């Protein structure tokens, strides 16, 4: 089993990207820290042939879900996203991810795991407890909705 530090070094960027996309820059560190604390706890029991990237992102998606549930108790609407100038690339990206965060949980998770963390649909299916096909469908439905939101 590889030393945990090497596992952290290998996957920290993907988890960070996922966390920023899933909950926003402000709260990304909470999700990041909680993800690796949980991973460290479970690490010795992990099967040696596991897909580590998919495993840690599964944990991250559960932590993000917890975060969204906690957030849901406070009022939030997609309309809260500020209008941004198109030339400001990073702000535009952030605004788009904020739109993704307003999607239903399955669609939101599938899109974020695919486009922020670069996980394939088979691994996304495992992470979300559904089939590869269902994961793909969730992402497509989410993207369709997103397209309507953005062009509306």
């Amino acid at each position, binding site marked *: 089993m590889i030393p945990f*530090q090497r596992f952290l070094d290998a996957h920290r960027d993907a988890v960070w990207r996922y966390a920023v996309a899933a909950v926003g820059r402000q709260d990304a560190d909470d999700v990041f820290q909680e993800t690796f604390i949980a991973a460290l706890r479970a690490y*010795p029991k992990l099967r040696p042939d596991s897909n580590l990237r998919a495993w840690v992102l599964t944990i991250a998606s559960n932590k993000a879900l917890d975060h969204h549930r906690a957030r849901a108790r406070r009022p939030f609407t997609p309309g809260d996203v500020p209008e941004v100038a198109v030339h400001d690339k990073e702000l535009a990206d952030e605004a788009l991810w904020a739109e993704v965060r307003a999607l239903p949980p399955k669609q939101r998770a599938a899109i974020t795991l695919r486009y922020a963390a670069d996980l394939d649909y088979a691994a996304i299916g495992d992470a979300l407890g559904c089939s590869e096909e269902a994961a793909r469908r969730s992402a497509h439905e989410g993207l369709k909705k997103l397209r309507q939101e953005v062009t509306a």
Partner: protein
Amino acid sequence: MTTTLLRPPTIEGAAEAAARFAASARADVHYAVLDGPVGRIVAARTQRGLARLAYEDHNGGLDAILDDLATRLSPRILDSPAKLDDLRRELDEYFEGRREGFDLKIDWTLVGPFTKRVLQATKAIPFGETRSYAQVAAAAGSPRGMRAAGNALGSNPIPIVVPCHRVLRSGGLLGGYTGGVHRKEILLRTEGVLPPA
């Protein structure tokens, strides 16, 4: 809008977040890479105490050292430099000639019972003094004699702090050392056993 517009966020902040995690999380093994007069040393501690001081170049490099610790101690290993600050301070004082012994607790997990006896006898050799392999074997109560004691010293997982450099061959020869004889010389000079270079 196309999906290519949905770009992943930047990794800005990721390295800092990972460092914060490694500094605050509770792992089974915390390590740091220290640098000093005897070169780069990988130091690792557990909840029990200091378990390993490995000369990086004599042990196959950092990755090989960590792989070995993962196998023999626990894979829950983190790079947490601040958790070895006390060792760093004691080593600095030692090399500056302001410290003759180390106060850190030792974790003997990596050694068997015989080696532990030999190394404990070695740890009792005072700063600036030396013993022969035969003397250390006798002090360890070893029925197996000096060859076995020599092997035990050669496998010392915590050089410097467990001062195997104070054990010399009879007849004034330095004998071997786990980090190379040049390091044994530096340590013996630090303690005034050998004259300054």
